[in-house]
């Protein structure tokens, strides 16, 4: 039986002793002040709180912290200064993907997960890859283009 939950956020070891049902998003935003993780819906529908858990995209608002024992979690703060993270973020800026910006950190995480498993996705694969991330501003076309741009510019980075 676990009495404390140990996991890694952006490579930093976290030991959590509180209520295991605490939502992962609240640990990230409230305790660790990683406010790049956004709460858009609180029910795993919009993707604004997306993080990468053990290499896979998940929504942190529906995961209890008790379920991440032993996991490695990366948020936007953990990838934004990596080569891959910068590649996506700069492509988003260049490609006009950003409007109000509230969905964007989650969208960057989705793009990161997609390109990490599929370095050169087709337009349809990109659309599928971000279909869990809702954006109300852009109509998605320029986000899709920007991810394509990141795929092209990143080249070997994603291979």
């Amino acid at each position, binding site marked *: 039986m676990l009495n404390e939950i140990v996991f890694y956020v952006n490579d930093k070891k976290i030991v959590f002793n509180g209520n295991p049902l605490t939502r992962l998003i609240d640990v990230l935003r409230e305790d660790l002040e990683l*406010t790049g993780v956004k709460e*858009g819906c609180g*029910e795993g529908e*919009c993707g604004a709180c997306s993080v990468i858990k053990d290499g896979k995209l998940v929504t942190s608002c529906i995961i209890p912290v008790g379920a991440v024992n032993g996991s490695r979690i990366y948020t936007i703060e953990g990838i934004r200064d990596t080569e891959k993270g910068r590649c996506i973020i700069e492509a988003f800026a260049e490609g006009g993907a*950003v409007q109000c*910006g509230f969905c*964007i*950190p989650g969208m960057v995480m989705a793009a990161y997960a997609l390109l990490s498993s599929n370095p050169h996705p087709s337009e349809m694969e990109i659309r599928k890859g971000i279909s869990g991330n809702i954006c*109300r*501003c852009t109509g998605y076309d320029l986000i899709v283009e920007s991810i394509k741009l990141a795929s092209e510019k990143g080249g070997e980075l994603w291979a």
Partner: protein
Amino acid sequence: MPHTAIDDKVVRVDALVKARGEARYVSDMSFPDMQYAYMIRSSIPRGTIDSIRIPELPEGYWFISAKDIPEEGKNELWMIQKDWKCFAEGDVKYVGETIGLLVGPDRNMLSYLRDKIEIRYTEAEAAITIDEGLAVKGGPIVGEDNVMCSLFVEKGRPMEEVFREADSVFEETIETGFQEHVHLETNGAIITIEDGKYTFYASAQCPFYIRKAVAGLLGLQPEDIVVKQTTTGGAFGGKEHFPDVLCGPLLVAEHKIRKPIKLIFDREEDMLYSVKRHPAKVTYRTALDKDGNILGIDGVVVYNCGPYLSGSFVVLQRGVFHANGVYDIPNTHVKGIGIATNTFPSDAFRGFGAPQTLYAIETHMEHIAKKFGYDPAEYKSRYFIKQGGETITNGHIVEKVVLPEMMKQVVDASDYFRKSKEYAPGSGKGIGISFYNHGGAFTGNGEQAIIKAHARLVKTGEKVRIEVGSTEMGQGFQTSLRKIAAAALGISIDDVSYDNPDTSVVPDSGPTAASRSTMIVGRLIERCAEEMKERWEEGDFSVEKEYEHPEGHPWDQNTFRGDAYLGYGWGCCIVEVEVDKLTREVKVTGIWSSHDIGKAIDELIVHGQVNGGIVQSLGYASMEKMENRNGHFRQSSMSDYVIPTSMEFPKQEWFLVDNPYEWGPFGAKGMGELVFNGADAAYIDAVERALGTEIHRIPMPPEDLEEVLRNA
């Protein structure tokens, strides 16, 4: 540093900070000793409050209500009228009306306390739908007949005369539903006291509106309140007047508590208890000759306003002024009625009343065309209004109208006429077309008479700071405005700054609404820059300008006659669909649009606005269903009120025409709302053709198409 030209490609100034997750939205902010607030709301649509039982509150917890408004204050939020109360007192008129604010340091405790509050009511019969409002169900909510606001406009000859000459009369009623904004960032605000002044940090379109709306609660003047806009995660009209409803109670609470207080809606609250787009019922009775030529249109436009006015009369006016679409109909008479009901008050939403009537007139025109065997595109194009043409309000179109050129762009790109012929009605394939416009800025002489916008440029060394009250909410204004200033000054965009407005620093530039920011505030900054450039060598100084109304635009706000708008944006959209024969699911296979926005200040930003506006409009037409049962919205989450994902619609093909506008900066006009105004009608036209049927309301998800086909 090279100077920035208006046509240079620039990187959006806020893109990197947002994509890196470093932008601070209001929910990301905290202050020492910050308290949290939960709103306590009515759970019935209509009735009187008999009692409010508050559990015993632990030390440091507060329940704030109307009783806490000091003697010198009044329980009212000053939007356009002062009818919307800050806290319900005695009676309640809609589900979700603010009754109190529960404030304290711990959200868990607040949540328990909230569940223990007991409010008893005597419930009255509520009027929810337009028809119930018109029928004065349960007795009047407003006046004697529930008519909250009304107007009529007429052009040409009297209707009786026109209808006497008609060979046939075609009448139909077209309805639109509620639409929820679903800005990804929910509503939220923080109040604190800074330098002895009540200071708000708010996700808002109009910081100056908040000041004005809430000051009277404490008997203060607007200048006594400071509003600092925080990075705003989408608004679409949903953060125009509505932040007043959060900030009012916060101010009353702050008056007592004097610690920072944070109020953030969760998604369920934002869905259930926020303003929506007005549902509409538009009836056209059209006099036709034997060949299907239009002799005149008699229209009635009814909008469901809820029980308080907020922006409804202005929304209704815009609806009426757009009720003839882009057409020069020789004789028109249109009456508009804003009806009071017991739904959550309806308010601003991108398009501001125009989308409802534009959808209706486009559908109506298309139905007439089909009845007489004409192609809708060809038929509609016969009536395009031209420069100098008389508008529905007896004014004139001032600018050159290039709709034929725009139509050619999309018709050619989509191969419209071939497909229009080839896709037989009911074949499962369809293509549809719509035309639309949007009057820029405030109605009539509102910019001059009401808003009187100011803007300022401040020069320090070689750097220039923009000081305006206009807000960035995702539409790209911080980039556009900096670009306008830089290009007019002949300096680099990097040497121009523009922070989120703080009402204690910047002049009031009017609300960030009505597609007026680029056209009006942008022009003001251009004028400031022109003067600053002349005087550049003078050292550090600032230039402030006030709005000047162009000559020769008569308007009478009492009779609604004259030039309703200073200029229009114009649009044309084609949508192609395939309807699944088994499931009635509609697959959009192509989207083409052309827009006349005068001149694009930044093409990439415009591209994003076009894409986003069209997708929002297609969502409105196809899937965004918000139902109200007995005053309660039935959709409360992003899983039951669905908005489009990246998989819904294909990549769009889009065009712009260059048609510089005389009074806009570098020739630019408004565009943020225009791009929402027409894809819905093109989509429904295409679906109608694919199914070989007529549709009279939106939204139209597959289950509603099933009903339409059964009743056909």
